[in-house]
């Protein structure tokens, strides 16, 4: 089976093209719904696999995303490459193209967004490009799928794509260095195109240097590079070798563009200009953003998501339970099986499934913001605030994704260039209320603050953000002294997201939740139900004498000062560490609630408004869930930081809940 890699700059429409070219769709990596390392899909015509690499500007990696792409090209050997470029930004895009051509694998150039370019008065002549670069150039409109049929038919036989003969002359000095490095490289096997490796070495690509270091002693090669650089400086050609290589490429690109592009009729982005004059307005920008966020939460919880959840809850608690009851009665199931299925499974998993509509709507809106181009503006608007807190505006996107699920959000932090900013974002991510915590807020808000549900829920989100900002300031001041943060963000033109792409990415994000409902939550529910069903006295004991009660009672005294020192509350916390979704399903089981209304009644009698706020705050802050801990370990590659993130959040949760409850009591609330 052949593999074809899809490479290109960010925002050039790679994902659209990927979606149209592939039918099945799988993510590499352990979690769904992220710009994970690389996506793999099967080509529609069955000719092989298509690998979607993260968007990169050059093969010289700055962020971890780019490192993944560079590493892929070095360590794996795709049969062919599709390089997708934005026709309206050709000059910049071609820099990567040249590096890919030097890589030497058969390459197709997908000239995307020809419609956008045309609308802006930029005409690109694909024939001249083909002639200059020596590779097939296919004009595309990936968003609508126009031209993708042609790409597929070229890919039908990847071996038929003509080999690349492209070679750029870097001048006598550099060419000498390249030639002598290549002779050294001949000694080791398993390298891709040697000239390419030599060039990347001269450009000081860290991934290449790392790889070569493992295979051979590279001091000789570095000496060659150094000598060449010194001679370049002596001849006053350039300050450094990488700069020289870049300028040779840029000269060539300018020459190609001058021939292939007719931009005499170029017009500015009218729509983008007009929208930006409002959306990134110095005074209006931020209030508008807050308004959008409020509307987003309102839609999720009040306008659309809430009613849908109620419908689903009515079905699960009513009809589904009734059917199951009568079915189990008809087949004569034992009392144990009956209780297991109705109380354990339907009660536990069903209690979480009712939140599916709200979670999907939230994900849909996040995807919309991402695809429309607004998200980049949000980073811009937030940068000055974030900078004051010691981070940069780019960290804002991961934080917003964190509202969906912390796991993909931590992985999204990979697009941040600086290691310090990335680590801080990762450490603070658990303070973003993920969708798993949402059911808890929704439940308590419905019981204690029925008139202001959206506000109550929103304030929990805000609380997380506020603590994230405070801790950010604190950590960046005390843990990462002397490190500045940088900020640069591209602002893509605004565009209407496509329904197909939207639904696909919403599904990809939400799938993880459903999968968890089917695995961790299912297993957790059954386990917890068993613990509540069995006790030291045997099976089917009174819940107050169950293992669960014993266990919850053990931690309850610790929670007493926080206002919820009952065994019931205590016993939700440990399964809540596995997955926060389990908190509500645990409650469903503990309180034997047939449906949401029943559970709400029970909660109302056990908690007070004040202790409910304290409990919600505790659930928000207390510890990242197991999956998040796993991804923190993976991304930071450090147990120290992993334990640090668990430790600080536990301490924070206890302190905050204590202050809320005791403070509230002093003020005379209950």
């Amino acid at each position, binding site marked *: 089976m052949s593999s074809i890699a899809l490479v290109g700059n960010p925002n050039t429409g790679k994902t659209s093209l990927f979606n149209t070219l592939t039918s099945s769709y799988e993510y590499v990596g352990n979690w769904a719904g992220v710009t994970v390392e690389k996506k793999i899909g099967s080509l529609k015509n069955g000719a092989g696999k298509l690998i979607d690499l993260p968007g990169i500007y050059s093969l010289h990696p700055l962020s971890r995303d780019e490192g993944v792409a560079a590493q892929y090209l070095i360590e794996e050997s795709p049969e062919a490459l599709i390089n997708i470029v934005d026709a309206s930004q050709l000059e910049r895009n071609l820099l990567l193209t040249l590096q890919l051509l030097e890589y030497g694998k058969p390459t197709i150039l997908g000239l995307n967004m020809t419609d956008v370019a045309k609308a802006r008065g930029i005409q690109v002549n694909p024939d001249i490009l083909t002639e200059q670069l020596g590779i097939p150039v296919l004009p595309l409109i990936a968003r609508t799928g126009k031209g993708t049929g042609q790409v597929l038919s070229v890919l039908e036989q990847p071996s038929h794509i003509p080999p690349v003969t492209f070679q750029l002359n870097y001048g006598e000095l550099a060419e000498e260095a390249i030639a002598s490095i290549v002779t050294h490289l001949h000694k080791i096997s398993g390298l891709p195109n040697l000239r390419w490796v030599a060039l990347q070495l001269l450009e000081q690509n860290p991934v290449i240097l790392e790889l070569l270091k493992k295979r051979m002693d590279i001091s000789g090669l570095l000496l060659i590079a150094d000598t060449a650089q010194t001679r370049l400086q002596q001849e006053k050609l350039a300050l450094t070798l990488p700069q020289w290589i870049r300028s040779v490429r840029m000269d060539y690109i300018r020459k190609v563009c001058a021939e292939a592009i007719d931009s005499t009729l170029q017009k500015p982005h009218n729509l983008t200009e007009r929208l930006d004059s409002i959306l990134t307005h110095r005074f209006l920008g931020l209030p508008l953003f807050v308004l959008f966020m409020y509307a987003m939460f309102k839609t999720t919880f009040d306008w659309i998501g809430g009613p849908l959840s109620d419908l689903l809850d009515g079905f699960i608690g009513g009809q589904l339970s009734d059917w199951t009851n009568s079915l189990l009665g008809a087949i004569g199931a034992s009392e144990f099986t009956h209780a297991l299925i109705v109380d354990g499974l339907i009660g536990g998993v069903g209690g979480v499934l009712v939140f599916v509509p709200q979670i999907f709507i939230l994900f849909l809106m996040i995807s919309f913001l991402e695809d429309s181009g607004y998200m980049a503006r949000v980073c811009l608007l937030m940068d000055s605030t974030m900078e004051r807190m010691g981070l940069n505006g780019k960290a804002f996107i991961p934080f917003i994704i964190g509202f969906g699920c912390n796991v993909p959000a931590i992985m999204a932090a990979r697009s941040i260039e600086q290691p310090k900013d990335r680590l801080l974002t990762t450490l603070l991510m658990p303070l973003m209320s993920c969708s798993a915590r949402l059911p808890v807020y929704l439940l308590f808000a419905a019981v204690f603050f029925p008139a202001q549900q959206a506000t109550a829920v929103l304030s929990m989100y805000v609380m997380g953000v506020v603590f994230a900002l405070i801790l950010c300031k604190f950590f960046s001041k005390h843990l990462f002294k002397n490190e500045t943060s940088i900020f*640069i963000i591209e602002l893509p033109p605004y565009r209407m997201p496509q329904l197909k792409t939207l639904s696909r990415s919403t599904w990809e994000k939400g799938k993880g939740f459903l999968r968890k409902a089917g695995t961790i939550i299912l297993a957790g529910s059954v386990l917890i139900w068993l613990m509540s069903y069995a006790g030291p006295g045997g099976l089917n004991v009174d819940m107050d004498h169950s293992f669960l009660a014993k266990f919850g009672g053990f931690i309850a005294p610790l929670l007493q000062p926080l206002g919820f020192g009952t065994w019931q509350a205590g016993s939700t916390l440990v399964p809540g560490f596995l997955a926060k979704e389990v908190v509500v399903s645990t409650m469903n089981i503990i309180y034997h609630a047939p449906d949401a209304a029943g559970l709400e009644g029970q909660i109302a009698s056990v908690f007070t408004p004040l202790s409910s706020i304290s409990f919600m705050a505790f659930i928000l802050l207390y510890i990242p869930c197991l999956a998040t801990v796993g991804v923190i370990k993976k991304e930071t590659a450090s147990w120290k930081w992993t334990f640090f993130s668990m430790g600080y959040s536990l301490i924070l949760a206890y302190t905050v809940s204590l202050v809320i409850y005791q403070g509230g009591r002093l003020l005379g609330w209950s």
Partner: protein
Amino acid sequence: MALTSCSLLRLQPGSTGSIQRIEGMNPILRRRLADLGVSEGVMIRLKGKGPFMGPITLECNGQLFAIRRKEASMIEVKVS
């Protein structure tokens, strides 16, 4: 027409200058700017300034992007 050099920050929103020098900038940011085609000799336009001393929006080669004011002050432009 007289040519004057000044920091990019001094441009009026909407006006254009050609980049004269970029100095003292964080190397990572410098590389990223180069990736976007921002280098000496290129025309750059100041589109707007963000709220609360936030980043400024720039346009270069038809690409919109934003950087912080502190860094923008290290880009020297020539205006005619």
